[in-house]
């Protein structure tokens, strides 16, 4: 589960080690300890999310650690998605009004 509500003491060694390996594999580094801690927290939440994704998927997909595992979902979509497509194609709007009169 989420680590947010826990006492901000030492993280489980396994998680820290997994995060360290992630950083090494994908050449990820952070400018300061605060950002490092924040990314570790996000990484932990994403790991928890992957278990849910795995359970929800009806196919054969495997989810887990990727180069995007230290990003929030919002950051991921913003950085790697097609912003224009997501805004323009995914949203439907009413362009008329019931109060319009004669054409």
């Amino acid at each position, binding site marked *: 589960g989420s680590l947010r509500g826990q006492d901000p003491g030492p993280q489980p060694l396994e*998680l820290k080690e997994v995060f360290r390996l992630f950083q090494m594999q994908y050449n990820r580094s952070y400018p300061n300890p605060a950002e490092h801690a924040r990314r570790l927290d996000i990484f932990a939440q994403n790991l928890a999310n992957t278990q849910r994704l795995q359970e929800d998927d009806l196919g*054969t997909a495997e989810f887990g650690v990727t180069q995007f595992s230290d990003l929030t979902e919002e950051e991921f979509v913003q950085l790697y998605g*097609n912003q224009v497509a997501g805004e323009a194609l995914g949203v439907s709007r009413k362009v008329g009004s019931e109060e319009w009169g004669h054409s």
Partner: protein
Amino acid sequence: VPSTCDWRKAGTISPVRDQQHCNCCWAIAAAGNIEALWAIKFHQSVEVSVQQLIDCDRCGNGCKGGFVWDAFLTVLNNRGLASEKDYPFDGSGKTHSCRAEKHKKVAWIQDFIILQACEQSIARHLATQGPITVTINMTLLQHYRKGVIKATPTTCDPIQVNHSVLLVGFGKTKSVEGRQGKAASFGSYSRPRHSMAYWTLKNSWGTQWGEKGYFRLHRGSNTCGITKFPVTARVDKPNKQQQVSCPP
């Protein structure tokens, strides 16, 4: 429609690109489409300039996003695309002016079309004409490692499509192929599976991601909105169109 198809086996698919810090999946997908069609129809291996599409896009959004059809319009307006070598990709996200007129064109298109939003029609076109760009919901790709994603509209909204990729093939998994393995520190588990139909798609996040840069989506359930915008260029003239055969 054949039961399986994989244009990679014909040597017609260019290497997987990495969009880096530029939101240009739309341009990379369009470029990949044109490169594949030139290889299939004219037996010419070309790598075209993604940067030209970004810099010369008529809407001028560049690295902030765009549409595949705008990329094709740019190709028509510029009378073709320069080579990647002459007009190389800059993944930093910086804005550049259009330099299309300074370079020789190595590939061009006659037209572009949007196909019917039907997976059977898409499969038929893929197998007989060549790869197609599609735009999907990218939510599940953040943590994807391998296998066939089969999502529901709840887990992957087919209306909110926000990532353009290139459709290069389709097939079926073997009956016994199941999901076995570990996700990070979690335990392993297996789930026996019936044969599952899938699409093979080329992404633009480098070869370290997914299945060497590719991924697979379930075929037959409009997973992640794959049928919403199937768009492809046409490189041969209408009266000279010929069917081609996708390797199984």
